[in-house]
């Protein structure tokens, strides 16, 4: 790393990789073990929501929870902030 590199603004590529992996791995883990339609369901829900609200690509989370022998499909959508 030379003198100029100390002043560069772009973050090192390894931290970009880490952040991208952190997000995609968490997303894939949340649908793992659940029914095969979960990823597609998530994508279609995202498309519908995006018709009305401008949300981030990872704003929709779907999750199947098993409790007391029954399954609960959990959906969560984070909306952008007021100034977002």
């Amino acid at each position, binding site marked *: *790393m030379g003198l100029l590199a100390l002043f560069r603004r772009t973050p090192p590529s390894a931290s970009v990789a880490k952040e991208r992996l952190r997000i995609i791995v968490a997303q894939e883990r949340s649908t793992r073990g659940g029914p095969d339609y979960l990823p597609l369901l998530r994508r279609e829900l995202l498309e519908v929501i995006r018709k009305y609200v401008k949300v981030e690509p990872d704003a929709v989370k779907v999750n199947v929870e098993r409790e007391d022998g029954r399954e609960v499909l959990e959906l969560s959508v984070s909306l952008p902030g007021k100034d977002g």
Partner: protein
Amino acid sequence: MTEIIVVTSGKGGVGKTTTSASLSCGLARKGKKVAVIDFDIGLRNLDLIMGCERRVVYDFVNVIQGDCTLKQALIKDKRLETLYILAASQTRDKDALTLEGVRKVFDELTGDGFDYIICDSPAGIEKGAHLAMYYADRAVVVVNPEVSSVRDSDRILGLLASKTARAEKGEGGVREHLLLTRYSPRRVAAGEMLSVADVKEILGIDVIGVIPESADVLTSSNAGTPVILNEDSEAAQAYADAVERLLGADLPMRFVDAPKKGFFARMFGG
């Protein structure tokens, strides 16, 4: 007791066969009786890395289909007394290998007093990879510090936790270890490559070895000598450490720090 270890990764070309060859040599060098099995049906390669390609007469599928005995198909290594290789079949029929067939071979190896069965998994998440991992007690997940490899490893970890005999029976699952290959401490220090700590944090499992990027891996495979036997090589020493850790030793990681640079080198690059 026989321990079954699968060497797997999801992504191709990350060093599964190199790792299978070196770990099995390392365990045999410690006096363990080891069988290393190529599960890549149709794309046999372990024999080349082990340097025994001209001695393959019968293969894994021949044993399962009863064309020969297991003894006839096991190739005894010329360097290590207690090491045996079972080659993959070159057939294009992927259904030639079955769970029952694999179980039968493992039972016979167990009966013959093998300490370790190392299963060299094919890439991907299809049938071959499933068969290689199904009966495993432990898994060595080979990963490059690179985005697609890390993501694929996570997929494999998901399968290990659900599609294996240990997971299905609720026997506490398969013990999982990460093994990083092609690691460049210099690039990690420059912020260009994910570090051991990054990969460990993302995947959430323990690291059993870090193999530095090394020209010796290619020269060893050219010669058909597993790199661990090339003792001057850093890659060999890193694999030897991984073998010790598999056997329960607690060793610090070597070859993970970049050589320290002087003040001028740091300020003005180099």
